[in-house]
């Protein structure tokens, strides 16, 4: 059962960048890649809860600003040699609008 919420226009998220979506319980980072794919992760690095939304995006990974862990945007997991995963949320883009399933 999914619950799509419209969050923003695609162009409101910078290419190779992210926006923070604040819900009642947590922050979600919504990323946009160079080729306009959109991914959403809990905005907390599996290492020490660093804000992933503030990291540098390249390809489909984001580098955490705190201690440089690389997190895969699709799976939410740290790339070797580090270990750990954060939560992943589904997203879709329709007619230039970004939707998030929470």
């Amino acid at each position: 059962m999914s619950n799509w919420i419209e969050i923003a226009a695609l162009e409101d998220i910078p290419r190779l960048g992210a926006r923070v979506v604040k819900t009642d319980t947590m922050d979600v980072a919504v990323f946009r890649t160079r080729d306009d794919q959109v991914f959403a992760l809990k905005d907390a690095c599996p290492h020490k809860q660093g804000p992933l939304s503030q990291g540098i995006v390249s390809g489909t990974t984001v580098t955490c600003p705190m201690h440089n862990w690389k997190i895969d945007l699709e799976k939410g997991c740290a790339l070797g040699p580090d270990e750990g995963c954060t939560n992943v949320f589904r997203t879709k883009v329709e007619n230039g609008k970004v939707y998030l399933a929470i």
Partner: protein
Amino acid sequence: MKEKLVLVGNGMAGVRTLEELLKLDPERYEITVFGAEPYPNYNRIMLSPVLAGEKTVDDIILNDRDWYESNGITLHTGDPVVRIDRAARKVITESGLEAGYDRLLLATGSNPFIIPVPGHDKEGVIGFRDIADVNTMLEASKRYQKAVVIGGGLLGLEAANGLMKNGMDVTVVHLMDILMERQLDRPAAELLKQSLEERGMKFLMETQTAEVLGDDRVSGLKFADGSEIEADLVVMAVGIRPNIELAQTAGIHCERGIVVNDTMQTYDPRIYAVGECVQHRGLTYGLVAPLFEQAKVAANHLAQLGFARYEGSVTSTKLKVTGIDLFSAGEFNEQEGDETLVLQDPAAGVYKKLVVRDNRIKGAVLYGDTMDGTWYFQLLRDGTDISAFRSTILFGQHDLGDAGHGDETRVAALSDDAEICGCNGVCKGEIIDAIVTKGLFTLDDVKAHTKAASSCGSCTGLVEAILASTVGDGYDATPSKKPLCGCTEYSHDEVIAGIKEHQLKTMDAVRSFFEWKNPDGCAACRPALNYYLLAYWPGEYHDDPQSRFINERAHGNIQKDGTYSVVPRMFGGLCTPAELRAIADVAEKYNVPEMKVTGGQRIDLFGIKKEDLPAVWKDLSEAGFVSGHAYGKALRTVKTCAGKNWCRFGTQDSTGLGVKLEELTWGSWMPHKFKLAVSGCPRNCAEATIKDFGVVCVDSGYELHVGGNGGIKVRVTDLLCKVETEEEVLEYCGAFIQKYREEAHYLERTAPWVERVGLDYIKQAIVEDEAQRKALYERFKYSQQFAQIDPWKQRAEGEEANEFQPIKITAA
């Protein structure tokens, strides 16, 4: 139910054991502590400074009562344990309290040895052991004049020094013919005696006490040779005796101390002992370092981990008499067949001796200059072969850097538990372990696996050295070139040259020209390329916020908790009441939890939420402030001293010049952070000689210094040249900055850059080649046109709003 642990002896070794235990297993025991003294655990070592009036009792408390409480420890002070009932497994105190135990830890320390001569129990005869003794001495010093200290060892001399500082006339009586014979050889002991005599201390050497004279209170001493001396206070500091009475009466096996095995266990397996009361492998100890090692081992076994072993310690000593530097360790008196390395400079009052056997340091005595004591001690403990640097070893560790193998030898000198990366708390042993077990070969691998050198990077050299010494020949320490990052084979220099020569003006152009493996680049090369393009094509290249580290993207320093700090620029550190008021208003309006004056003479506002940043900046910018760039690889601050306008030593207007320099340079992006300072005279109050560019004013003009920095590896600047006018200062400064901006590698500070290219190269370009200097200066001023646009004001006016505005969704 939890097991019960009872500690008898609320002193340094016992409480340290509890601290170590709480780290390992905070929940295992219900802990009760009994201490004879009416205080929580304090730093006994610091009694000497307390006696000398340099510290107070409050200063030396190590664990206050809150500490015991918050760790759930029951503390009974002023109530010594008088009996251990091993059959019933309980202890009984003087006041009649009883406490049962599953494990008992004895840490009763030691007692001062009081020589049993007739009259030794008269009033005014004391030892030097605890706060009560210090109080007795301080009281005596108020009412009496003459003090005699028996014992010319470490403790006796510290007591004598303290009493002298309290105005007493002090004589030290010593049995041997040299002072501190257990720590010093004859030449060092003579130097020490001489300088204490200069301070007014008197000595009776080779003198044996026979009797304490007086009625109720001591009035003097009589010696074995029949002579006498007056005394109103006698401090006996002739040694300590492990305090084993309690253990002995409980039938626990004791010799000189309570006998323990390598796990700090006594002959009763439920009872452990640590500290000065202990005898381990035939030895007792009277210094804290070995006791702390014992504490670690005892804690390990109390936590039932069961693997740590105590195998004895080598100790070193320092004398804590302010103004006298003295260090000794190991076998400092040479034996037949040993070599000694000696450096003597009587005029400077310096004496250093190392005892060497088979190219390894066995002992050290240092007097007057003890800077390298810890290093020699490390070499001694690790048994390092010193043949490679024995000809310079007496000049100290810092001398090695110049020999070209600084880092590697430094690293060899460190023990496995030496912390290499302070930011991430990574020790040498962990790094070696990762290299060996995971088969790492490159610096990047080591960074990735251990996190060492991955935060501030200042330990990179050490990490490389460890890698080199661990991997040995497999690691090519200086690869012919180092790729810029994992995305490319090309080096910083090649990329910089390519950007210039092939007119590469966008990041994509650079990446495709150099055939980057990864089309977006990575978190390492994106900020570097963004900087290079910005530096080469001012006005043409558009800054890419997504290629900047978060601090530079958000124009504030991200803090641990995700909030930001804001540092407004105050040119040259000057400010007006109105500006301060404006800052204060902002701080109140946005509930800034903490403010601080920074090392660079600015005001830092901490704890601002990201969403609030644009509004904070708006208020600041309306009050006339621009960004202080305290967050960026950019021009940080120009620090200035009072200067000629106010200071009686000032030779030039250092403050005014600082303001001009900051007006010229602010806003400039750099390969790394860049700091300036201007001092009004060679007293150098603005610390200009540890800045990237420092100006020291002299009567005849301005000395320009370059390539310094503070921080972990302090580097003092090199003198670039001297100039005569302020205009020249500005021109040389701008040219130096531009040379650095154009040629240094991204994240290379001026200090390593200057070392890499050589001071001569920079002098040639800036001082000797006038045409080049002027061209550099022009290019700098040109690029400043585009750089001196306040990023805060732009964002206050709405630029990059998405960066700061979160999207909010709430459950309907």
